[in-house]
């Protein structure tokens, strides 16, 4: 490279040293990952030759990863086929892995069920797991609730019969959910037959969607601007 450019770059070398170190580390990982996936992209996975694990430790690690990503209990036979190894070798390796893993006495166990191996939580902790699962669905909405919220956001203030009219489906439980989550608020009654309650979005709604006020809701035009380009 030209000398004058080097001179210019000199000042920034120190500042960038740390960054460069991190870059090198990342580059090494990328190289490792790319080596194989690059080939996969071009040749297709099926005819890609796959090496068997080198050491016993590597074999155990690969087995652990496979059982983890499998959506059903994984048999030693299947693992042996994937790794192109002898079934007996794999069988012993899984047994050893299970023994090691379970000796940790952690919250997870590696167990044999329905002819295969899977990771599962230990029953001792199921009380906590159940409690956790119950508290969980907070930030997320069902499709029904989302639709109802969309109608309320863009048509507020709006009554339950009006939402029914637009969505074509009953929404009381969705509205209750949205009220519970404080995403919408009651806005008084509409002076019409039956004086139905009107709903609108709340301050919490603005907060959760990062809006200063309702005028910041994206409009159809915003959407078209992007699609157009």
């Amino acid at each position, binding site marked *: 490279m030209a000398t004058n450019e080097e001179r*210019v770059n000199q000042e920034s070398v120190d500042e960038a040293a740390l960054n460069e170190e991190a870059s090198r580390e*990342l580059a090494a990982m990328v190289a490792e990952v*790319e080596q194989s996936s690059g080939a996969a992209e071009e040749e297709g996975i099926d005819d890609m030759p796959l090496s068997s694990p080198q050491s016993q430790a590597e074999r155990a690690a690969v087995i652990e990863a496979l059982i983890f990503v499998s959506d059903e209990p994984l048999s030693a036979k299947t693992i042996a086929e994937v790794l192109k190894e002898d079934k007996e070798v794999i069988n012993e390796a899984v047994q050893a892995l299970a023994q090691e893993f379970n000796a940790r006495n952690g919250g997870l166990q590696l167990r044999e069920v329905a002819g295969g191996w899977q990771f599962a939580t230990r029953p001792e902790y199921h009380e906590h797991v159940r409690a956790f699962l119950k508290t969980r669905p907070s*930030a997320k909405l069902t*499709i029904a609730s989302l639709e109802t*919220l*969309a*109608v309320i956001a863009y048509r507020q203030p709006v009554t339950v019969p009006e939402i029914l009219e637009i969505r074509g489906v009953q929404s009381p439980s969705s509205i209750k959910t949205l009220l519970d989550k404080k995403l919408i608020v009651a806005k008084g009654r509409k002076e019409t037959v039956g004086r139905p309650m009107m709903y609108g979005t709340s301050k919490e709604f603005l907060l959760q969607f990062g809006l200063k006020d309702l005028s910041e809701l994206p*409009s159809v035009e915003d*959407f078209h601007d992007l699609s157009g380009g």
Partner: protein
Amino acid sequence: MNEDTPETALEERTTPLNVAGAVPQIVPDDNTDDLKILLGEFEGPLDLLLHLIRQEHVSIYDIPVARITDEYLRYLRVMQELDIAVAGDFLVMAATLIELKTKMLLPRDPLAAEEEEDDPRTDLVNQLLEYQKYKAAAEMLWSRATVEQAVFKRAELETDKNNPEVAVGLFDLLKVFQDILARHKEEKLLEIERDEISMAEMLERLRNMVMSAGELNLRVFFERAKSRRELVLAFLSVLELVRTTEIRLFQRETFGDIVARVAS
């Protein structure tokens, strides 16, 4: 560094032309079905300028404007000879460069103090320096994504299936609302028409299609509808089975295909 960017993985055409060290390419656009011209490896005028500066071995802080402008224009001319529509942003930069070149040729104002005089190139240099940072940041992101793609999460558990949930952003809200309005319009039409398949039959069809494969791309299901009315029924039947939790919906991208699965 350009040579290491992911775009070079794209199939290369052997065009005899080689301008500014880069071969112009024609590639399919990811977002549309159109072909787009990849100006060599350049993502924009700043990218091209950076390349020229590097190629000419000159300092970014002391750009020989005349030389670089000539190279830049030569590049655009080749594009035009190839009958390629050069993006507007490239032309804007060409105008800027020519103006800059002219300013550099003008005699200095003898009344202005020598050190105080502004270098007309300052704005461009700052722009290039700024862009360069983000270009490097983009490469860093690319590396991170590559490593991250090699990391796998656990398979789905029974407990993940509690609710057909969707994570929501602002534009989802708009999209959902537009969909509902479109659906609403269809329903109005529906009241006039009669005959054809019934809602019960449509529900049965959907059940069968999902059950037989365990999973169903909804686009496939919708495409079977022979009329707009059937399409509406198809859509409603999906909503119904989601409501009764017989099926669950997945969507990997916001506006991507939706897949229905049997909820066990």
